[in-house]
């Protein structure tokens, strides 16, 4: 007797915050139709399926999450320059978790922090997109994103795993990206305002698939 195994995957909405030089650089990511590619691909320009298999490993994922700017002994360069992974923010607000931790963070906040280059700029660019996530670790599977909260046991509230960090692999495809937004810090208002939004005309909604996890 055999049993079919059913694995429920999720569609996860995320935001990628990018510290880009100017509006043109941001709009080009949409208009160029190339999606959001990993630093490795951008550096080497040509990648192969065989090379991808060698890159998507658990040690490399650990380097991406915990040793991002350290020198990779395999390349002699900071791992960040040749990482095959793309960090995305998913956010985390759940009523019971909030009562236990008093900690909540929407994806936009984390993405905005990174997009302003950790507060060094007064503007940032946010890309809203969706990825497919499985409930179990699967670093070798290129088309599935990873939830990385288990990789750091020292994280705050580790008993409740509150950090909403997701890692995509190699590329976030063009038609997964809904839009790009520019956010400006406006001192007179004391906060951020959205300056503009640039929609992707080729965006494919994930609603065709089941199990969509909304953006928080």
């Amino acid at each position, binding site marked *: 007797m055999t049993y079919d195994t059913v694995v429920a995957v999720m569609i996860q909405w995320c935001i990628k915050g990018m510290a880009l030089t100017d509006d043109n650089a941001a709009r080009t990511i949409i208009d160029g139709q190339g999606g959001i590619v990993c630093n490795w691909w951008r550096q080497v320009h040509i990648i192969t399926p065989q090379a991808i298999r060698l890159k998507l490993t658990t040690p490399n994922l650990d380097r991406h*999450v*915990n*040793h*991002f*700017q*350290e020198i990779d002994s395999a390349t002699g360069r900071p791992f*960040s320059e040749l990482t095959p992974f793309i960090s995305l923010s998913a956010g985390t*607000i759940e*009523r*019971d978790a*909030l*009562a*236990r*931790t*008093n*900690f*909540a*963070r*929407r994806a936009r*906040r984390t993405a*905005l*922090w*990174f997009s*302003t280059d*950790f*507060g*060094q700029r007064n503007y940032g660019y946010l890309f809203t997109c969706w990825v497919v996530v499985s409930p179990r670790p699967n670093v070798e599977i290129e088309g599935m994103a990873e939830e990385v909260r288990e990789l*750091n046991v*020292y*994280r*705050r*509230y*580790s*008993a*409740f795993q509150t*950090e909403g960090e997701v890692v995509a692999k190699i590329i976030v495809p063009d038609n997964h990206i809904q839009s790009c937004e520019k956010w400006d*810090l406006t001192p007179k*208002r*004391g*906060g*951020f*305002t959205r300056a503009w939004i640039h929609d992707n005309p080729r965006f494919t909604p994930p609603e065709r698939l089941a199990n969509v996890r909304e953006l*928080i």
Partner: protein
Amino acid sequence: MPEGSLRDLHLDQDQVARAASFLEAYAETANAELVRGMPAPQGRGETRALKSKQHSGPVQFRYEHEPLFTLAADTASAFRDAAQWLIYLDVARARKTLARAARVFISMGQPYGMYLLAVAGEWATDPMYEILGDALAGLHLISSGGDTRQMLMPALLHPQQQAYLLLAAGGSQAIPRDSEAPWLLAMEESPHARGVVPVGSLGTPIRRLWDVARQLFLGVPDVSVIGRHLAEMSRAYAETIELAQVNDHLWRHAAAPVDVGDLDIAGIAALTARLVGADGLRDAVLGSVEGRLAAVALAPIEAGIALASDERRGQ
């Protein structure tokens, strides 16, 4: 001084200032959205009007339900996280930001907000007597096995919220020290008095916070008990910080997923220092470890002492 702690933590003061400013700006952004999302006063949905002796109008847990709950959680957390950095930079600004976070948490029905108000030192001018009293009555209801379906603050069903409520009550002069009070008896009899439920970003066993609250309520606490608990929490804090520093990229940019300004430690230090003085607290903490506590471990304690000390100097 708290700003010296940044050197001990190997954090650049300018980067910490940027982090605090970013979080304040983000909190204002989220707060503006929350205010715009506010329903009409005669509103839809369930509301419970409460009155505080100090407030001129009704106080409502207006952010208990979606979609405002998510917006409020975002706002409150951002204000709180800003305050966590500010305790090392600007104590007066930290107090104001804590109070802003506190009010939003309370408006969500989270007793944690009362703890933040107590830590910020606002109980003297804005004790919110009735809300605090009602929350404590809820604690008694839980303990006695009563019907909790109509509780004013359902979040109290979570042990963590109970612990923060008790710390707020212990640290507030607004609550009479009545040893026969039902909620006090409930506190003594609660299994959490000996429990291990994790509380706070460090996962502190709830029994520690329960014991601290019990001591604070005495008015003249056995400060050696509090000192011992703070020392242990600070050791856990120091180890967490050491591990977080391994990721140099995130650490240098003040982006590590840890609470560098730990408000559990700083808050307990502030509440205690107001009762026994800064030197009394320091002596108790260091005395419990024979003086052996790393400078990093002392950082949030000193920040808490500053929260209590500066207000007496009018800063």
